[in-house]
């Protein structure tokens, strides 16, 4: 007996500990200023702009989740660079949901809607990331680091032997693409003065470049404007790394490296994403055919692209560094600027370098994405005024409070003191749900939307139902004549199954809704699923243990009229209290099948009566002789088996 009590206490302590942990974590978050007590609000409550975009490809290629992630990455970079704070961009395949707080202007919206472009330009000048005002134009680390990088790749260079399964030629990833440059390298890049540095800072081109006529690798593209822009550009500022303008396709351009701290002056666009048919990554094999632990990126060109690429590589392979590099630009930033050693024909090429698997895969994904002729269709565009959102939230909370009060009144009315257990359980469920939502808002950026609030309010009813199922069950067991202890025990075993089964269905609904629905439906499904889980937790760790403990008090155990377990109300005069202590029950139940005092006859009584009535007859005919009029029965089937 005391073990039951002990385990009940233990459950309550567990629940208390869990709640305490949730709130402690939240308090730490609030204390350190990284979150607030209240959960973050969704756009429809806080106000703001929400766009749902669907990327579309002209040539009917299937868009993959990777492409979507890439598109989101680019949008995020652009929006961050534009200085809009707290923008949220997420994917719900095949859609992209963009949430911008406040009332963003059309320019910001356009930032998001623009499609990204992949450009190939010849590199004219490469330099360290900082503005040249303080640091004179430094040429790339062509001397220092390349020594290391070129060496392995040099051995790979002869690979264009016909035996190579891919008839592709290697490009050598520029040295600056070497992973993880130390900070010192950024502030003081290995400056090796190069011929190319000369024209950049001072020399003004003698001739004006003519689009389509001037050699794309000519220094003529470095106009005074471009030169000035280059000098001022600070590529350590994240604003300049992403979301810069694409530049005019027919003229020279200045851009930053997206992964490496470098900046470039480049010639006009020579190839675009449409010339690329695919990209992949894989381990790099040396000439000897062994793996050297590095990875490479493979590019496949279209027929037209392959011809263009052969022409470019043939031209720039002859030039001095850094003009023997070409820059691959995605969305205005240079992804990679590999060095070319020879003309590459055959429609495919490999970029090698000290890539890790992730770096190679990322670059390949970016290239693949750049090759997609993506356009974005605006599916839904919503501007919610902050006033309206606040109004809705307030009304939602009022509705929730009214709903809660009504439920409380009804359960007190129905279950008397037991109603207090319902209220306690609802309060605990509320506290836990609130903490979890606040923590999720902090941890994974969950935002509570109006549909989510509706889900919470609906959950009040579903949570309360678990208690109703349980309490009704206890009452049924009491009606069958059990003592309160054993009624609670038996009822729990049965009710637990029912509660778990029905909650499982609820949870299933929530998960399916969350997985397949779009927009607001998800917010609703999320809170519905969450509260279902909280419901199970509360029923197991609070409602049941508290009922076990209360069952042991005099008030409930003796069936006080206000306790909700009043035996009179349940059709029995007293409850069985154990150890043979019972009073004479005189419940009325089945008319026509009752004994002299109006109570239903038990099996033993019926048998005795039958035996008496059938005195002259043989004793074993008790059941047969039980005529309906004289020998009423009221026992149920399953009890009799």
């Amino acid at each position: 007996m005391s073990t039951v009590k002990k385990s009940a206490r233990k459950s309550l302590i567990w629940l208390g500990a869990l709640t305490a942990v949730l709130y402690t974590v939240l308090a730490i978050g609030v204390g350190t200023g990284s979150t607030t007590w209240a959960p973050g609000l969704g756009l429809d409550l806080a106000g703001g702009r929400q766009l749902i975009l669907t990327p579309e490809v002209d040539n009917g290629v299937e868009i993959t989740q990777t492409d979507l992630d890439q598109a989101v990455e680019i949008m995020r970079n652009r929006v961050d660079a534009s200085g809009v704070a707290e923008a949220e961009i997420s994917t719900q395949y095949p859609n992209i949901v963009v949430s911008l707080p406040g009332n963003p202007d059309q320019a910001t919206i356009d930032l998001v809607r623009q499609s990204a472009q992949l450009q190939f330009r010849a590199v004219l000048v490469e330099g360290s990331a900082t503005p040249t005002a303080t640091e004179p134009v430094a040429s790339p680390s062509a001397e220092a680091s390349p020594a290391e990088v070129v060496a392995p790749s040099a051995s790979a260079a002869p690979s264009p032997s016909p035996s190579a399964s891919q008839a592709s030629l290697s490009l050598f990833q520029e040295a600056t693409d070497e992973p993880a440059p130390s900070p010192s390298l950024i502030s003081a890049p290995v400056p090796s003065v190069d011929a190319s540095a000369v024209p950049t800072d001072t020399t003004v081109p003698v001739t004006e470049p003519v689009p389509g006529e001037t050699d794309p690798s000519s220094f003529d593209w470095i106009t005074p404007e471009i030169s000035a822009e280059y000098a001022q550009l600070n590529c350590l500022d994240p604003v300049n790394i992403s979301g810069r303008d694409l530049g005019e396709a027919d003229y020279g351009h200045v851009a930053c490296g997206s992964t490496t701290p470098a900046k470039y002056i480049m010639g006009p666009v020579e190839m675009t994403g449409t010339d690329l048919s695919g990209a992949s990554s894989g381990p790099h094999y040396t000439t000897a055919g062994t793996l050297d632990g590095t990875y490479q990126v493979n590019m496949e060109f279209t027929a037209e692209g392959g011809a263009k690429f052969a022409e470019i590589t043939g031209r720039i392979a002859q030039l001095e560094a850094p003009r023997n590099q070409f820059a691959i630009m995605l969305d205005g930033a240079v992804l990679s600027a590999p060095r070319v050693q020879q003309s590459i024909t055959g429609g495919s090429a490999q970029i090698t370098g000290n890539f890790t698997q992730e770096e190679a895969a990322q670059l390949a994904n970016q290239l693949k994405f750049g090759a997609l002729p993506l356009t974005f269709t605006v599916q839904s565009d919503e501007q919610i005024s902050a006033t309206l959102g606040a109004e809705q939230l307030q009304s939602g909370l009022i509705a929730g409070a009214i709903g809660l009060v009504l439920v409380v009144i009804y359960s007190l009315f129905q279950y008397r003191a037991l109603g207090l257990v319902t209220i306690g359980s609802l309060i605990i469920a509320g506290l836990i749900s609130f903490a979890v939502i606040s923590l999720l808002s902090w941890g994974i950026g969950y935002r509570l939307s109006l549909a989510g609030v509706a889900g919470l309010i609906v959950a009040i009813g579903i949570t309360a139902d678990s208690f109703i199922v349980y309490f009704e069950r206890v009452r049924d067991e009491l009606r069958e004549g059990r003592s309160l202890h054993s009624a609670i025990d038996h009822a729990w075993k049965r009710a637990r199954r029912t509660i778990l089964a029905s909650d499982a269905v609820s949870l299933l609904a929530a998960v399916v809704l969350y997985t397949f629905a779009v927009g607001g439906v998800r917010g609703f499904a999320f809170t519905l699923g969450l509260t279902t889980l909280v419901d199970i937790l509360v029923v197991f760790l609070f409602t049941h243990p508290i009922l076990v403990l209360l069952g042991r008090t005099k008030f409930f155990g003796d069936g006080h009229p206000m306790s909700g377990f009043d035996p009179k109300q349940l059709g029995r005069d007293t409850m069985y209290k154990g150890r043979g202590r019972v009073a004479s029950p005189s419940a009325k139940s089945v008319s026509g099948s009752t004994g002299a005092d109006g109570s239903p006859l038990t099996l033993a009584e019926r048998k005795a009566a039958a035996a008496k009535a059938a005195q002259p007859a043989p004793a074993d005919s008790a059941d047969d002789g039980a005529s309906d009029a004289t020998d009423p029965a009221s026992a149920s089937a399953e009890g009799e088996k």
Partner: protein
Amino acid sequence: MAMNLAQWGNALHSGEKTYPIVQQRKRWFLISGILMVAAIVLLLVKGLTLGIDFEGGTQFQVSNASDPDPAIATEVIENAVPDEVPEVSILGTNDVLVQIGVIEQEQSQEITAELADAYDVSADEVGFTQIGPTWGAEVGKKAVQGLIIFLILVAAVISIYFRAWRMAAAAIGALAHDLLFTVGIYALVGFEVTPATVIGFLTILGYSLYDTVVVFDKVKENTTHLTEQNRYTYEELANLAVNQTLVRSINTSVVALLPVSAILFIGSFLLGAGTLKDISLALFVGMAVGTYSSIFVATPLEVSLRMREPRIKEHTAMVLKLRETGDVDVAHKADGSVVVGALTPGRHLGTQAQPRRKKK
């Protein structure tokens, strides 16, 4: 009331009072059948009133306008997009809702500014929603996709839990009934269907099943030892389960409907429209229908289906035969019907009742 409901519960539990819901199932099937046909006819003839989220279009909402005169909005729209005929309505006390067709994305920004100007509110007080024409189809497709997957999963879960596919079939039948009925009411009254309404419809699925599972659990419990006794038929025991869970069904429905009514009340009277009202209206209708179906449709349907199982068929025939010959120990009511009720246990009758040793 509490007293009465509890005592009514006692009577239902013991079988003193029984509503022959399962026995009269033909009546309920007829009623539900007529309602279903009516719902389908309504859907086909009248159809649902779809919101702009499904049709595509643009909607502006001006909050806190000091002079919420629809004419102002009509004028603004006529100037900005002469081709469009705006539908202007007033929400609550001082909010204006303007609906027009699909317009250029950039135009919505301009109209927002003009509306703010015209109603003399700040631009932050004007919200808009612009939905592309293909989006609604997408939302609808997703909902249907989710529905089908949900039904398959639920059928599997219920079949495994109850170890009877007929129960799953009955539960899903009741579910279809609830959805069709609710959608039919929407078609009849002409409530607007928005994504929030769809949320409501989908929640009805969960709720309807939840309710049905509770009743079925009791049916299962009552009939676990069906073939080990010969007093009652499957039908009678299932009906007892429905009666025994009646109080719970009523309590649950009331408790579930109370918060929903609160949202509906606040949503319709204080806000006038929006997510809250749409969700709660669908839930209100659906939950009420769901309670009805878990009592009057799900279990009767389940019994009809399971009566076809050879094991149960045999058992029913045996019980009825025994009853005819009077070879079975069952109680009868005054009207001659068999009393089906819970066990009334024996109790200790004191030492007087104990057998005495015969004196030699």
